[in-house]
């Protein structure tokens, strides 16, 4: 029982991170119908910007943890969203009128490029940071097992919940959100009505990248290490989360992220830690086989 609760906490933490990244996949799919395979690497870039920022702040002797976290978040979001913007502008927009496969291949190219760029500029070795939040709360003890809630986990869950709430508000209540949803439903009509669809698509990429950057910062704080290859596996898991929730569905991405995080935690604890990645990929295959529209997705064909 105690271990199950601990896994629940761990799983929710992990799931929050997957959910943040999954939103980027699902938004981009919703608006231009492509899977942005470079999105996992955008998250990796966000994590590296976090490491660099933390190191710089430490070098300047900044010791206030809340200030450091906030500063790193702002810097990571700002720079990473520019990456998101640039990836769309360079690799996808010129191919928008061509067949569906072209931007997909371009995305894989972008992914490889980003990984190699970071490897060349930052080195191939694992980069650690000095631990930032080390405390935690002992919730209760059962036998020899103490259920512990770490400060980093509280940070991740609270930040994610706040971001999701803000993001939901943005999409459902604001003028930009309405334009974004309009583009998902009919781009030509949205243009004809006087909206700059290219700009809306750019901002969508920037928002997706910004959320991935937050995930990158959180993971950096949580694990304390990053390397240039973390974007690949995490990217595919977040993609699985988006597909599981129903690609194109924002609540679906959040739900899918949580489920993947929980399944992974419990699988690692009770079945096999070495094969924990198998769990997510098995889910991906099963969803694609039996319920391609996902949990909250809608069928492609709809009555209009």
């Amino acid at each position, binding site marked *: 029982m105690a271990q199950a609760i601990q896994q629940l906490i761990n799983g929710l933490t992990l799931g929050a991170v997957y959910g943040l990244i999954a939103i980027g996949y699902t938004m981009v799919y919703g608006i231009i119908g492509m899977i942005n395979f470079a999105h996992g690497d955008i998250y990796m870039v966000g994590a590296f910007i976090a490491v660099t920022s933390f190191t710089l702040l430490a070098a300047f002797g900044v010791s206030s943890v809340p200030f450091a976290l906030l500063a790193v978040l702002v810097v990571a979001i700002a720079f990473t969203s520019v990456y998101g913007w640039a990836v769309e502008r360079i690799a996808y927009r010129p191919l928008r009128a061509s067949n569906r496969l072209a931007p997909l291949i371009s995305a894989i190219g972008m992914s490889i490029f980003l990984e190699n760029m970071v490897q060349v500029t930052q080195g191939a070795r694992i980069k650690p940071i000095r631990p930032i939040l080390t405390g935690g709360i002992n919730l209760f003890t059962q036998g020899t097992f103490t259920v512990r809630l770490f400060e980093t986990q509280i940070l991740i869950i609270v930040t994610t919940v706040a971001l999701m709430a803000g993001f939901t508000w943005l999409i459902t209540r604001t003028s930009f959100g*309405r334009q974004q949803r309009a583009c998902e*439903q*009919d781009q030509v009509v*949205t243009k*004809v009505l*006087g*909206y700059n669809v290219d700009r809306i698509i750019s901002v969508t990429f920037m928002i997706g990248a910004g959320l991935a950057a937050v995930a990158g910062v959180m993971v950096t704080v949580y694990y304390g290490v990053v390397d240039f290859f973390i974007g690949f596996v995490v990217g595919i898991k977040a993609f699985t989360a988006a597909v599981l929730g129903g690609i194109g569905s924002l609540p679906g991405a959040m739900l899918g992220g949580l489920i993947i995080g929980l399944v992974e935690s419990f699988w690692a604890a009770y079945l096999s830690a070495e094969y924990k990645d198998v769990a997510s990929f098995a889910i991906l295959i099963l969803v694609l086989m039996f319920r391609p529209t996902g949990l909250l997705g809608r069928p492609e064909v709809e009555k*209009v």
Partner: protein
Amino acid sequence: MMLQLSGLNAHYGHVHALCGVDLAVQGGEIVTLIGANGAGKSTLMMSIFGVPRASSGRILFEGEDITQLPTHQISHRGIALVPEGRRIYPRMTVLENLQMGTAKADPTNFQTDLDRMEALFPILADRRDQRAGTLSGGEQQMLAIARALMSRPKLLMLDEPSLGLAPLYIKKIFQIIRELKRDFGMTVLLVEQNANHALKVADRAYVLQHGRIVLSGTGAELLASPEVRAAYLDGGGGH
């Protein structure tokens, strides 16, 4: 002259959809474009918005050359389109659809314009918070027209507004077109297969065939023309 197309050519893939089209709309006029399925009527409407971009020729709106203007800026000049098949946003509410019609409109006009639309189309007031995809075809057409009018356009273009609608709604739509001209002095470019209704409402009309304008005249002239009668009115050509 409000809108003037001269020598307009447009291609859809390898199809030469518009071949040297000359067409003009004056302020305050209702101009109708009739023609059979596939004659290029919708292409003509969409090419005014640059989708597809004209391969040659010129489009002038109030004297300004808009041929190469980005699509979203064309609407800012004061042209609104009610597209073929309505193309309202099905997963948005009626209110959100109307809000989408106000890209460049002054936000302080919103309530006035919304009230005006809901007076013109009372059904939209009843359905304000309902998803637009759940409306009937006729209701969706009302919504599409209202959405276009929310931008306070100088020129309203309607592409097949009566297509697939029940006779009651068809009557209502042509009645609204008349009212828009009479009460607001609206300039209208109307594309229709329903030639009989369309010519009756029109000040002037053009007949498009295989991407070319083959006839033009006042609505009454075309209504009386034996060629038009044979091809588009007495059960031939368009339906």
